């Protein structure tokens, strides 16, 4: 089985040029921040009420802790969201993510076994979908979270198409 399709064998040079990076939609950040605020806000409220009623209002100040965590998480989520980006090159998909723990993944299209598009209820409400690539190696962790559903579908179709053209066995 041949990896590269015939029309591609001559023009491998274009893979060396700088790839076009794409970020994730802002809606994903909004969704994550909303979830953070809802969960930590609920915890802070419950803690504050419980301690305020059972102990003294002084103890209720502990409820400020989740609020501080929320502020920190707010910043962290923003930085993490900015770090996520992906690029489709002629023959492989690039994925880069992480602020402190940086990780960059390259998956050649020919090695793709399965492309999965998932979307949970909250994600659907925000108009988001995730694309996950599987290769024969389970360690390949190539997931693009929170894409526009139309973009996710376009990516899935393109990846499947390219994967078929360049497919190879194990």
């Amino acid at each position, binding site marked *: 089985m041949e990896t590269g399709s015939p029309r591609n064998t001559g023009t491998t040079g274009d893979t060396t040029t700088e790839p076009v990076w794409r970020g994730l939609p802002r809606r994903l950040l909004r969704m994550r921040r909303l979830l953070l605020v809802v969960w930590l806000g609920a915890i802070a409220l419950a803690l504050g009420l419980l301690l305020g009623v059972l102990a003294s209002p002084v103890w209720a100040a502990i409820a400020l802790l989740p609020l501080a965590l929320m502020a920190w998480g707010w910043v962290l989520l923003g930085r993490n969201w900015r770090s996520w980006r992906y690029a489709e090159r002629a023959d492989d998909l690039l994925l880069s993510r992480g602020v402190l723990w940086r990780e960059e993944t390259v998956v050649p299209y020919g090695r793709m076994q399965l492309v999965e598009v998932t979307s949970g209820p909250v994600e659907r409400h925000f108009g988001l979908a995730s694309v996950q690539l599987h290769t024969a*190696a*389970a360690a390949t962790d190539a997931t693009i979270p929170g894409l526009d559903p139309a973009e996710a579908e376009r990516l899935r179709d393109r990846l499947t198409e390219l994967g078929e053209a360049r497919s190879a*066995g194990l």
Partner: protein
Amino acid sequence: MTTPGVDDAVLGKEPVTERRLHPVTPLRRAWAPVAVLIGWAVHDPDQAQRQLARLTATTLLIALAVLVPVAALYGFLSWWYTHFAVTDTELRIRTGLLFRRTAHIRLERLQAVDVTQPLLARVAGVAKLKLDVIGTDKKDELAFLGEREARALRAELLARAAGFAPETAHEVGEAPARVLLRTPPLHLALSLVLTGATWGTLAAALVVPPVLWFATHSVWTVLATGVPLLGAAGASSVGRFVGEYDWMVGESPDGLRIDHGLLDRTHETVPPGRVQTVRIVEPLSWRRLGWVRVELDVAGSSNSVLVPVAPREIAEAVVARVLPGVTVPSAADLARPPRRAGWCVPLWWRGYGLAVTDAVFAARHGLLRRRLSLVPHAKVQSVRLAQGPWERLWRVAAVHVDTGANKTVTARLRDAQEAAELLRAQAERSRTGRRDALPDRWMA
């Protein structure tokens, strides 16, 4: 791939002759209830003894009279309802009395074929045959077949997988094998004596029970820890010797042949181009003798040893046959991490090394027990670069290379700039590496 529950009628075009397993198979299945009873007795001897004392001779006889026919019937029925057939593209195994299960194993996806003979099966003249395809498990083996039938079936399956025409595949027969390496028993015994794990487990088995006896004076505690420890010591020395006895690596047009075992014999055939990674392991105590152990990874296969022990030159010659066109990079060819990597991994940073040739990605790790992993570029599934905060401070990064056998080979502590270039270059190499790889059907 196995797709249980697919109706044959959908796929059946021409009638295929279905066969049954060897008639001794029911005996093996009939053992199951007896084995369960023995297992219970061993697990809980106190309880078992009390129960046995309560039983009278008559109840025992009645129990046996019920149990044995039931076991025999179970064995017979499970044998009667198991069929297998070889078609042009797949091996089909139909099984199950109440819950029907049909496994379709695609021959073109074949990664390896194992013929194994446990001791009792050798006495009875039968063998197990298993096709290694990703996703197959213990249920998908053919146990048992007649010894000669197993060999003939293996030859036929390999011929069909290799791409011979279906009409001729039956007559191609066993491909001739040429012996590449044979491990002398003395050599193997000496290598085990020189292995730290053998002495470690033995020392633990001899020291821990007496210490426990002085501490607790309880026979049961001593037995409960001493028996497993002794078992582990036995498995790591005698068990390994028995398993790796008379290790033979051969080469044939059907691929690599690995035969081994003193009591249980195993014959494995790995067709060309199925090896995902090769690891050359060099423990400290073997280094003076220049011996190495070679391990390999094949997707879906459980065996991971290629050569249990051999002098370095011979082992490298075997590796060169297994991965055609590959020369094992020497220690001098391996690029060490920069000196500042010592801040990330003190002392052990010297053990890391990396060499990339036209054919393989080779990464070494370990200081005392050195392990050099080789991945052919064509087998790389994805490439990853990872860098933590502390590593970024010292401008180093790790490059992970994932293979289809679910093994990841890592080149750690590379210079950050070098790692970024390596990531791009490796992705390019693994993509183009496929061009001159052998086709899946190696004879077509």
